[in-house]
């Protein structure tokens, strides 16, 4: 039995339940780094190459948290999630492609890295193959790997189904792993605005780095819709409407999500959370802004987060935005 460390950032929000189910079923222990906090951010900024975007820096911080507590660091190389994009060229931002190598080259005293290449566009059996590779490297045998793979898949499907019912990842995760069935009491007033909140999961769902944006929206009477609440088919429909798709999985999800919500009449406004020094976002953000203007009347707000994004700045801008939405609605 080994201890497997999983950083609570980047692709964590995408498919943590799968890996949790998989490794646990194989008899290993999954250790997750704590939720992002000041110390993690500072450590990350110190460790990572200084020109990196803030999410990559934070990733380094999470790795440092796990380094002396686990036997393996789980840092798979994400190459593709599906055959998507134009001519099946969709992949991940270059920083994901080189992530295990970056960690290895810059950080000292880290445990062995499980850096299996995840390139799912190869075919539908690819995930099972990836699992066999990982399982074998941990000393597990064929049948138990298949069982663990199925367990992971079942959890993942439930996780995604819960999100499609409108649940945020935190809640969905609690429901899955702590068997909580009661929905936590909602604070604040009954929502009277519908806000589409798009952005990379590691920016939208990391409460520290976005200065509590989700909670703030809920407290201020917003009902939040994220791109993870959409089905793949709903996303795909939007892909057709662009002159060309982007090359990065997460970016495409953000763009499709935004375009989808632009169509939905009950959505009052769109917020895009973008991260400081992110390459793809320089294009994603402008594209959504232009398309929002072309395709609808919906107001668009872009919020950039960085290592210093303080509460105050985000709060003022969000409050002003919501006020404006209410004013517009009441005028109509």
């Amino acid at each position, binding site marked *: 039995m080994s201890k497997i460390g999983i950083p609570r950032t980047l692709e964590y929000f995408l498919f943590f339940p799968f890996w949790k189910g998989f490794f646990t079923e194989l008899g290993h222990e999954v250790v997750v780094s704590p939720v992002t906090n000041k110390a993690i951010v500072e450590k990350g900024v110190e460790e990572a*190459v200084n020109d990196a975007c803030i999410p990559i820096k934070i990733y380094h911080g999470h790795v440092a948290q796990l380094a002396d507590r686990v036997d393996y660091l789980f840092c798979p190389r994400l190459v593709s999630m599906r055959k998507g994009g134009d001519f099946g060229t*969709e*992949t991940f931002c*270059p920083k994901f*492609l*080189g992530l295990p190598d970056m960690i290895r080259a810059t950080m000292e005293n880290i445990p062995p890295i499980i850096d299996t290449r995840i390139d799912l566009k190869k075919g539908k059996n690819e995930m099972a193959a990836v699992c066999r590779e990982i399982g074998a490297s941990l000393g597990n045998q064929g049948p138990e790997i298949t069982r663990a793979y199925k367990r992971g898949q079942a959890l993942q499907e439930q996780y995604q189904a819960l999100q499609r019912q409108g649940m945020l990842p935190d809640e969905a995760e609690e429901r899955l792993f702590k068997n909580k069935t009661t929905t936590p009491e909602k604070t604040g007033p009954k929502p009277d605005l519908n806000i589409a909140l798009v952005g990379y999961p590691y920016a939208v769902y990391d409460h520290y780095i976005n200065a509590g944006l989700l909670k703030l929206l809920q407290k201020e009477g917003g009902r939040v819709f994220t791109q993870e609440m959409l089905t793949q088919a709903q996303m795909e429909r939007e892909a057709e409407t662009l002159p060309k798709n982007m090359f*990065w999985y997460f970016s495409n999800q953000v763009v499709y999500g935004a375009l989808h919500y632009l169509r939905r009449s009950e959505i009052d406004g769109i917020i895009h959370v973008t991260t400081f020094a992110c*390459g*793809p976002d320089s294009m994603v953000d402008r594209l959504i802004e232009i398309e929002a203007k072309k395709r609808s009347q919906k107001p668009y707000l872009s919020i950039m987060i960085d290592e210093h994004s303080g509460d105050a700045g985000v709060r003022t801008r969000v409050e002003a935005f919501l006020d404006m939405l209410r004013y517009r609605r009441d005028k109509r």
Partner: protein
Amino acid sequence: MKISFPRMGYSYIAFKWLVENLGHECIVPPEPSKRTLDLGVQHSPEFACIPFKLLTGTYLEVAEMGAELIITSGGMGPCRAGYYWVMHQYLLDELDQNIRVMAFEPPLCDLKDFFQKLYWIKSSSGLSLHAFLQVLKVAWQKLIAIDDVEMRSHELRPLEINRGQTTRTLWKALERLDQADTLEEVETGRLEGLKHLDSIELDRTRRPIKIGIIGEIYVVLEPAANHYIQIMLGEMGVETNRSIYLTTYARTSTIVDLEGDIYAKARPYLNEAPIGGHGANSVGETVLYAEHGFDGVVQLAPFGCIPEIVAKSILPRVSRDLDIPVLTIFIDEQTGKAGVQTRLEAFVDLLERKRISKESRRGR
């Protein structure tokens, strides 16, 4: 039709000839200036990379000069460059510029689209297939000739006795190539150019420090974007070898040639390729330059360049393992010539001291 294209180094000479000989009017993109940059910065997203901004500026300038069509390359990632043309078209439309950006996507992805565009160009030229192919051939030979004389100039410059002579001779050679209209004239221009370069008065006793230039293609190729770094280094007495020329892939006798080879060199440090732009190349090329006995490597990258950041985080390890110093210069709109010069001087100084101590150790 009035056609323009992105400017990268001296390649515009060949592209200009190509456009004109296909029966169109060429709007030659001006060398990026302060104004180009200002225009680009003003109208591009803040975190767009510098090549994007300079091209935005260039496109607005050529639009002003009357260009109706810009022909450029596409690409399928994994980096932003392949999406440039889409974004540029969005931005130009927003600014109500009546100009179209036509991109050639890699034929391997979309053969039909590629041939349709090629066909459009051919039929708009009114040339027969034979004449069309001939024009393409001359333009390609021009590109090769341009690269040949430029390559030679970087070898000779550190040895020149009269400062600036190499650069002046190079420019004369390029002018001559600009005038060439047939395969024969291109070849004569090439040979003459090389001959003139070779007859520059040299001090053969100097032993120049050797530096490999790696990094992102646009800032490596466009001297106006990198403050003429190769000329600057040459005049400091340094021999530079540049990893990227537009005609690199057709060459076999240069240090950096075939791509597969480079990825293999990078693999011990970066087990994935390509990762977009020249990220994986930069890692592999550093290994190659170390193996060829270079004294150091300069990595040129746009500020925020995704693949070069990945490379930069890995290069310290390569540098340590192979004992080859690497200097990374990130270029953005604030980068000034003086700053670059100071950093290069310090770097060259370090390389010189390193060489002396290495040799004295060997002498003992």
